[in-house]
């Protein structure tokens, strides 16, 4: 078995050497990574317009070239949901396959299952829970957006998120009292809005810890 494998390994370079052009040999046996790209990586109209105006400079790359390819909309409902949870400082979850996520949308907790219709949801401060089999991971997210794509991929982008067990309840109570007080004594509209936002966040934190 090993000998056969060794023989195969040895035969490959000789086959390669036997063929005439070196360049074509390489592409026949080892495709370059660029050959495998299926999704469009360049906006052709942009490149052409660029070349007309500035022929001497190479056109800059656009995010299309760096985008990870997304799966197309499947015909039947897939068994699992793919979740991407991004924060400015880390990608908490990237391409994780889960059963369900519950996102804190502005209209309330929204459950997302595979095959959910495409939705754009704005998030309010609240609890995000990720259900995988019997494990439930809960995060408190500050706010952000959730995109649910028809191909059962969900993107959640938030500004800040902490796992629930890292929140200190005494600080939450203190903050809630302080900002309720500030809200009542606020004079300008701006201060009122600030205090209102803080009160919302702290009450959401409170309910997250208790509920």
């Amino acid at each position, binding site marked *: 078995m090993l000998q056969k494998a060794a023989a195969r390994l040895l035969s490959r370079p000789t086959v390669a050497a036997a063929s005439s052009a070196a360049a074509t040999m390489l592409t026949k046996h080892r495709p370059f990574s660029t050959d495998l790209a299926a999704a469009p990586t360049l906006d052709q109209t942009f490149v052409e317009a660029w070349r007309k105006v500035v022929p001497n400079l190479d056109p800059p790359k656009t995010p299309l070239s760096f985008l990870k390819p997304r799966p197309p909309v499947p015909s039947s409902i897939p068994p699992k949901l793919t979740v991407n949870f991004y924060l400015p400082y880390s990608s908490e979850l990237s391409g994780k396959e889960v059963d369900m996520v519950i996102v804190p949308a502005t209209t309330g907790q929204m459950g997302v299952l595979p095959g959910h219709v495409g939705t754009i949801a704005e998030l309010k401060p609240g609890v995000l829970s990720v259900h995988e089999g019997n494990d439930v991971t809960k995060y408190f997210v500050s706010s952000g957006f959730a995109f649910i794509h028809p191909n059962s991929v969900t993107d959640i982008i938030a*500004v800040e998120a902490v796992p629930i067990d890292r929140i200190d309840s005494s600080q939450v109570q203190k903050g809630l009292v302080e900002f309720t007080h500030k809200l009542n004594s606020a004079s300008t509209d701006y201060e009122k809005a600030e205090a209102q936002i803080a009160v919302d966040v702290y009450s959401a934190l409170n309910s997250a810890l208790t509920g």
Partner: protein
Amino acid sequence: MAMAALKREGKRFAPLISPNPINVLRSSLLPSQEETSLSVRYISTQIVRNRMKSVKNIQKITKAMKMVAASKLRQIQSKAENSRGLWQPFTALLGDTPSIDVKKTVVITISSDKGLCGGINSTSVKISRAVHKLNSGPDKEASYVILGEKAKVQLIRDSKKDIELTMTELQKNPLNYTQISVLADDILKNVQFDALKIVFNKFNSVVSFIPTLTTVLSPEIVERETEAGGKLGALDSYEIEGGETKSEILQNLTEFQFSCVMFNAVMENACSEQGARMSAMDSSSRNAGEMLDRLTLTYNRTRQASITTELIEIISGASALEG
């Protein structure tokens, strides 16, 4: 014996007189050379020694700068790589439309504050100028928002009237999302735009930086494009969760997209700056090392030549006395 030594020295003098790689050195030291009719006196070793000392100091400084840039790069690279997930969902949802036709484009150029970082700032400025040109025409106009001192200096020379806003000293405190979102808010409040084009250098590796152009559209243009169909046509099929209207959510969405994309762009550019500085300082120290080698050779030659000349004078004087 002395004649042989003289002949040998004659051969060694020739390189000093003929054109050679240390031409520059010679031209700067020319005043100290004395030329007699028959032979050439040499550069004083003192001058060469001073030059060697200064080149050695430069080498030390550039090596230190390289180490500093390497450590800063390490710190910021992990943060930049973590922020890479941030823009992907937006491009997946809204697509990427760099060739969109709008009336008012704002080109946001991201550059560094400090110099000595290779050619990345010039590249960014060249690309911004080209994007500006692409988007200027009879019924459309473009303007600049500049982040960073280096691009400001370059663009203020010929496009002063097109600059709307400049921001410098971004990296006084370590970059964070709050700072960038305040910046983004500033830009959104003070600048009218239909499309924002952000020009920055994406960090690919320590030696490679890719100039990149990201587009962020205003909510009105997004609506226009969804109605027109095409790339953003699929956006209509998405339901809006919540009681708000589509345009309200689009407003928040584009503002959030702008701040996320800016954050990623600024982090990547900072990484590229440190990486470019590392490689610039590295080649600079290497050049200084080579220069030092050549100077050392010159110094040794000069020293030996002066010793030999002394010896010759003594010997010929002594032999003349003997008769």
